[in-house]
C-alpha cells in the first residue's frame, strides 16, 4: 500500500490508530484501576514527547524537567484555588508559564553541552524541587501540599469521566504537533544540530534560537503534563516532583526510542505499567532503571524499542528472502 511507503503516510496512519485506540479505551475500559493507570501513562506521555524532541532529536540532555512539571502543576492549582479561574483557561496559562521561563533561561544554559548540560539541568531540577518543598506559602510544601482541586467537568450535564477525553486530546495535540514538527525544516535542523552544531550553523540554521525554542517546547510539554497531573490527582505535594521524575522521563525516552515520536508513547506506557506489572517492583525500581539504562546505552544506542523494532524488521526481511 502506498501509504505505508512514505514516513508521512505511516505517521498519519499511526496518528489515526492512536485516536481510535484512545477512543476505544475511553468507552470500553470500565475498571477504575486500569483507567487510572492508563491515564497516568497518557499524562506522562505528554511530557515524554517533549523530552524525545529535546533529548532524542536535538541531543540536549535535560534532567530538570521535573521543575517545569512542578511549575505547571502548582501554576494550575494556584489559578484555580486562589483566583477561581476556569480549569481550561488555567491549563493553558499553566502550560505557558514554564514555556516562557524556559525560553528566558535557555540561551545561557544551552551554551553548555554534554555532561555540563546534564549536570546544570540536574542542579536546576534539584533546586526546583527544594523550592517546591520549602516554599510552603505557595505550594504547601511536602505536607499538606495542594488539596482538593475540583474534579474536571466541562459540562455538568454530561456526567461521567470527562477528564479522560481532555487528557487524551492533549496527548493527541502534542503528538500531532510533534509529528508535524519532525517532518518540517525545524525537525531536520534538530537532526543537524544533534550531529554537529558546526555543520548546522554552516547550513544556515540558527542554532541557538532553535535550541532555545525546542527547550521551551519541551518545558511546555512538561508544564502541560504537570497541570494535567494536578487536575487528575486533585491533591498532591512536592514529593511528586523530585528529581526521580526527570530520571523517569529520561527512561521513557531511552526505553522507547531516541529517534521517533512514537517511541516516547511506548516508553511512557512501559515505564508507567512496569511497576504495576511486577510485584515488589517499587523497591527494585531504581536498580532496574539503572541497569536498563546502562545496558541500553552500551548495547543499543538507538533506544530499546527502536533497536528491537530494527531487529524485528531484519528478521522479517531475512524471512522473506528465505
Amino acid at each position, binding site marked *: 500500500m502506498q501509504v505505508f511507503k512514505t514516513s508521512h503516510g505511516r505517521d498519519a496512519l499511526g496518528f489515526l490508530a492512536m485516536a481510535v485506540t484512545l477512543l476505544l479505551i475511553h468507552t470500553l475500559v470500565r475498571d477504575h484501576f486500569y483507567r487510572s493507570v492508563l491515564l497516568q501513562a497518557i499524562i506522562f506521555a505528554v511530557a515524554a514527547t517533549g523530552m524525545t524532541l529535546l533529548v532524542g*532529536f536535538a541531543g540536549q540532555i535535560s534532567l530538570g524537567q521535573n521543575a517545569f512539571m512542578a511549575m505547571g502543576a502548582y501554576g494550575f492549582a494556584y489559578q484555580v484555588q486562589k483566583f477561581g479561574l476556569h480549569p481550561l483557561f488555567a491549563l493553558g496559562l499553566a502550560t505557558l508559564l514554564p514555556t516562557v521561563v524556559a525560553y528566558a533561561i535557555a540561551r545561557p544554559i544551552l551554551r553548555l553541552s554534554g555532561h555540563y548540560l546534564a549536570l546544570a539541568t540536574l542542579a536546576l531540577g534539584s533546586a526546583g524541587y527544594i523550592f517546591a518543598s520549602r516554599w510552603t506559602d505557595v505550594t504547601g510544601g511536602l505536607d499538606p501540599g495542594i488539596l482538593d482541586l475540583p474534579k474536571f467537568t466541562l459540562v455538568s450535564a454530561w456526567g461521567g469521566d470527562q477528564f479522560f477525553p481532555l487528557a487524551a486530546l492533549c496527548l493527541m495535540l502534542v503528538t500531532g*504537533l510533534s509529528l*508535524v*514538527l519532525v*517532518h*518540517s*525544516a*525545524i525537525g*531536520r*535542523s534538530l*537532526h*543537524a544540530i*544533534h*550531529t*554537529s552544531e*558546526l*555543520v548546522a*550553523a*554552516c*547550513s*544556515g*540554521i*540558527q*542554532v541557538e534560537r532553535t535550541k532555545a*525554542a525546542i527547550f521551551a*517546547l519541551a518545558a511546555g510539554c512538561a508544564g502541560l503534563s504537570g497541570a494535567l497531573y494536578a487536575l487528575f490527582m486533585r491533591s498532591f505535594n512536592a514529593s511528586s516532583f523530585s528529581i526521580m521524575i526527570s530520571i523517569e522521563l529520561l527512561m521513557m525516552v531511552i526505553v522507547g526510542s531516541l*529517534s521517533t515520536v512514537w517511541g516516547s508513547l511506548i516508553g511512557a506506557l512501559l515505564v508507567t505499567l512496569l511497576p504495576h506489572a511486577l510485584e515488589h517492583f517499587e523497591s527494585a525500581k531504581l536498580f532496574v532503571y539503572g541497569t536498563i539504562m546502562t545496558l541500553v546505552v552500551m548495547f543499543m544506542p538507538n533506544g530499546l524499542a527502536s533497536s528491537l523494532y530494527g531487529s524485528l524488521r531484519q528478521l522479517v526481511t531475512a524471512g522473506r528472502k528465505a
Partner: protein
Amino acid sequence: MSQSILRLDGVSKTFGGLKAVNNVSFEVERGAITALIGPNGAGKTTLINLITGVLPQTSGSIQMNGRDISRLGPAQRVRCGISRSYQTPQMIRGLSAIDNVVVGADLYSDFAMLDLFTRPWRVRRDNRAAQVAAHAALTQTGLPSSLWNNPADALSYGDQRRVEVARSLAQKPALLLLDEPAAGLNPTETEDLGRDLKRFAHDGLTVLLVEHDMSLIMSIADRIVVVNFGEMLAEGTPQEIQRNEAVIAAYLGADPLDTPALSSEATA
C-alpha cells in the same frame, strides 16, 4: 575586470601564542575558480573557517560583494551566499541522502516554531519546494536516484561527497567553498569533479577550493593563491605560480608543478 566577490584584507588569526593566519589579503574573482594551496599546516582550513564565520578573526576584515561580513556568524554568512563543504563529508545522522540535501534547501524555508501552532499546513508546501530544489541539486551531482532515500551515513565515501556538494548547491550560493573535495577520490572521480566544477563556474557560481591535487588544480583553476605558515606566499594564474620560485622552494623542491603530465594541459 570582474568584480571581486570575496575580499580578505589583512586577516589574522591568533590562537593563544600561535599565529595560525598572519596578515592574509587576497580577492576572489566572481565566476572564476580560485584554488588555495599550500603545504600541510599552512593555515588553509583555518582560512576557510574564518571566511565561513566559524572562527572570528583576530584582526583584518572580510568582505562579500563589498559588504563587510566580519562580524556575522556562520548562519548569517550562509544567507550572504557562502556555502562550504568539509575535509571529510559531514552527513547529518538520522536523515536520508535527499533529506541531507533538503537541509540545504531549507535555507529558504520561512517555517518558524510559532507557525507550528498557527499554520501547520504550511509544512507541506514548504517541504515540496525544498524537495524540488533538492531533486535538482542531486541530479546535478549525478547521485543515482536509487540511493536518494538511503540513510546518508550508509553511503560510500564518493557518494557522500556528492550529497555534500548537492547540499551546498541547494543553498543557491554565490560562492562555493570546498575543503579538499578531491581527497579520497580516484582519478576518474577526480576528473568528474573537475568537470562538475567547471560547469558550476560556467553557470555563474564562484568556486574557492582548497586542494592538494595539483593535476586537478592545474586543469580547472583560473587563479591560485598560495599560503605557507599562515602567510601569503604568492597569487596569480597557474602558469605564473608554476614558475614562482618561492612557491617551488616552499614545496621543498618536490615539484609536482613541473611534471609535464601536470602542466596546464586542459582536460575535460
